Each structure stands twice: as structure tokens, then as C-alpha cells.
């Protein structure tokens, strides 16, 4: 099934975090992050079945773009099954993902990570608990010992830092 000139196991081990990341992101809007493994599995199977004739410019970009495509297929088929309206605009990159778009996404992720690593402990707590885990602001405020309004302020500061890093590349 697989082209012997490509070592799929090695490539997958190296890039599986990014493949899952993009699949989670697409499926999140439909509350179906539990289907991320399906999207990633279908992406790998499709690539192994029809490998690129030439090595791509970036394996990571190809794997990420394929994972995203499969996740979008899942979102679309779920929308059809449920008869609900499917809005592409707010499913990230809802239209035909390609490798250039995937590379841009990966670059932005790479720029965001050091900015996140530079956050102080309180900022990181707000990022993890409020922005990522989506816990109630009031609960986090009580844990940190500040007001909910202060959590809003810290949250905006964190997002401004990440936005500056993603836009400025620093």
C-alpha cells in the first residue's frame, strides 16, 4: 500500500502533533474533537494509498493540509446528516486547504509558542484555564485572588502579546 521510498512511520511520529492540532481546531466548532483521531487516520491512509509522486516542499505542511481536509470532510458530512447550515467562514480555512495555507498556519503556531513561553505564571494560568480550557472567569478570579474584571484585563494582555508575536514574527 505504501510507497517504500517514504517512511510513513517516521513522518507521522515527527508531525502527528501538528496533524492533531489542526484537526482539533477544525472539529472544535462542532463540538466533535473526539473525531480528531478519525480525521488523522483518514489523512494518513489517503496519503499512503496515493503518495505524492515527488517529495513535497514540506512534509509537515502536506500532512497538516491533508489532516485539515479530512477534518473538514467530517464537519461537512455531519452538517449534511443533521441538516444544519454549514458556515465555512468560522471553521478555520473552511475552503480547500492547501500546503501554502498549512505552512502559514504552522509558522504562526511557531511564532505563538515562544510568546506563550514568555508569559509570567499568572498570565499563563489565565491562558490555560480561561482561554484554553474555557473555565468560568469567576472561578479563576477566585482561585487567583483577583476580580473577574482583572482576569479580563490579564486575558486581553495575553492575547495582545500572542497577536503581536504572530503578526510580528517575534
Amino acid at each position, binding site marked *: 500500500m505504501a510507497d517504500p521510498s517514504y517512511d510513513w512511520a517516521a513522518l507521522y511520529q515527527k508531525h502527528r502533533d501538528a496533524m492533531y492540532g489542526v484537526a482539533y481546531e477544525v472539529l472544535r466548532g462542532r463540538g466533535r474533537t473526539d473525531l480528531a483521531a478519525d480525521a488523522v487516520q483518514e489523512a494518513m491512509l489517503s496519503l499512503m494509498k496515493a503518495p505524492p509522486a515527488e517529495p513535497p516542499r514540506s512534509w509537515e505542511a502536506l500532512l497538516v493540509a491533508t489532516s485539515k481536509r479530512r477534518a473538514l470532510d467530517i464537519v461537512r458530512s455531519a452538517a449534511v446528516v443533521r441538516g444544519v447550515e454549514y458556515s465555512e467562514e468560522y471553521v478555520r480555512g473552511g475552503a480547500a486547504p492547501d500546503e501554502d495555507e498549512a505552512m502559514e498556519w504552522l509558522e504562526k503556531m511557531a511564532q*505563538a509558542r515562544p510568546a506563550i513561553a514568555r508569559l509570567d505564571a499568572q498570565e499563563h494560568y489565565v491562558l490555560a484555564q480561561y482561554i484554553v480550557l474555557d473555565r468560568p472567569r469567576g472561578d479563576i478570579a477566585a482561585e487567583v485572588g483577583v476580580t473577574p474584571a482583572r482576569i479580563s484585563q490579564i486575558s486581553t494582555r495575553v*492575547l495582545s502579546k500572542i497577536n503581536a508575536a504572530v503578526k510580528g514574527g517575534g
Partner: protein
Amino acid sequence: MHPDGKDEEIAAILDARAGQSALAAGADQSSERPEVRDLLKAADFAWASQQSAPPLADDPVAAMLGLVPDSELELDGKALSSARKNVGLTVSVLAQRLAARGWEVTSRDIFAWESGKNLTHVPALINALAEETAVDADRLRRQSGGDPERARLAVIVGSEAFKGLAQRWARIQGTTVALAASALESRMLVAVHRGGAPEADVLLESIEALVDSVEGAEGAEGS
């Protein structure tokens, strides 16, 4: 310093996400306001950057591709050394060939394997070594010695306490949880190989102390 209207506006959108992306939750408010849209996009990037693949043992693709370590089989270091010499490859050339395939393997790893240390249990990697040294993969595999230390480490790595530490380490290092877990596991392996066979709770405490100290240093810098 008092929170301004923008802070509360962004927070209200984040509060209303209910599992969706921030950009989707704030679609009405951000359509005409690029500064709000940028911050919501940043929230979505932050969310995505904190996601990672499941552990190898829980990943069906990893199982399909032979990436899940097999505790019963390990690389035969002497057989690898012999096979490598038979095809006239130096250690560094073999490492380069593996790296070209996508494996993160260095000459140092291969030297260690050939000396019988840190032998890999990953079937797909053993297959790759066999292909590069032109031997049947079965010749490079042997029954694992049933290393009790390795089995003990596997239990620790699977614990919730270890996963929590890996998440903290990932934050400090700005890396994925999987890579952070791997780095912490390597540190525990070093501790085990130094001898003394420390207990599981002692190993976890030493890793926690490391994470605490680096977090503490970071907090001091930030204050």
C-alpha cells in the same frame, strides 16, 4: 489600572464560546473591527497551540505504523553493529540516512544502541534500521530482557501526576506536551541508569522539584 471596555468586551465573547472558536463566538462584534478580530484570532491560536496528539499507546495510527514501543522486543545492538559494518556504513552515515527518512536519530543514539544501552523498542524504527542495513528486520530484533526498570517507568509515565508535570514542563519550554513528556521521561531514565533504583514516588518528586524550580525562576524573572 482599571479594565477598559475592550477587556470586558473580549471577555464577554470568550465567556460565550461554549466550545466554539473565539472568532465564531465573536462574529457579530468583530466583523467591522479588526482589532477585536485579531485578539479573537490570537485566542484561537493559543487554544490550538496547546493541543497535542494523544500518547502513542492511545493513538490508532501510531499502532498501525508500528510506533508503539513493544515491551517484549528490542533492538539487538550487536546485530545492528554487525549489519552496519557488513554494508560498509559508518555510524554517522546511518544516522544521516535515518534522519533523511524523518527519524530524529543521532550518531550518539546509534553508538548507544550498539553498546547495548537505551535500546529502542519501536518496531518501525527497527524496520527502518533493517532496511538501511539490508537485513531482515527479524535479525535486528530480540526478546527483551524484561527490564523491570523500564516496566516501572512505563507505569509512572502513564500516571496522572506525570501527565500534569508534563503539561507544566510544556508550558515552561514552550513545546508540546508530548515532547515535554518525552524529555521528562529521558531525565527519569538517566536517574534510573545511575543506579539505586529509586522508588516511583521519589522519581516523581525529583521531576516535580525540577519543574517547581524552573517555574519559580521564571516567576521571579516576571515579578
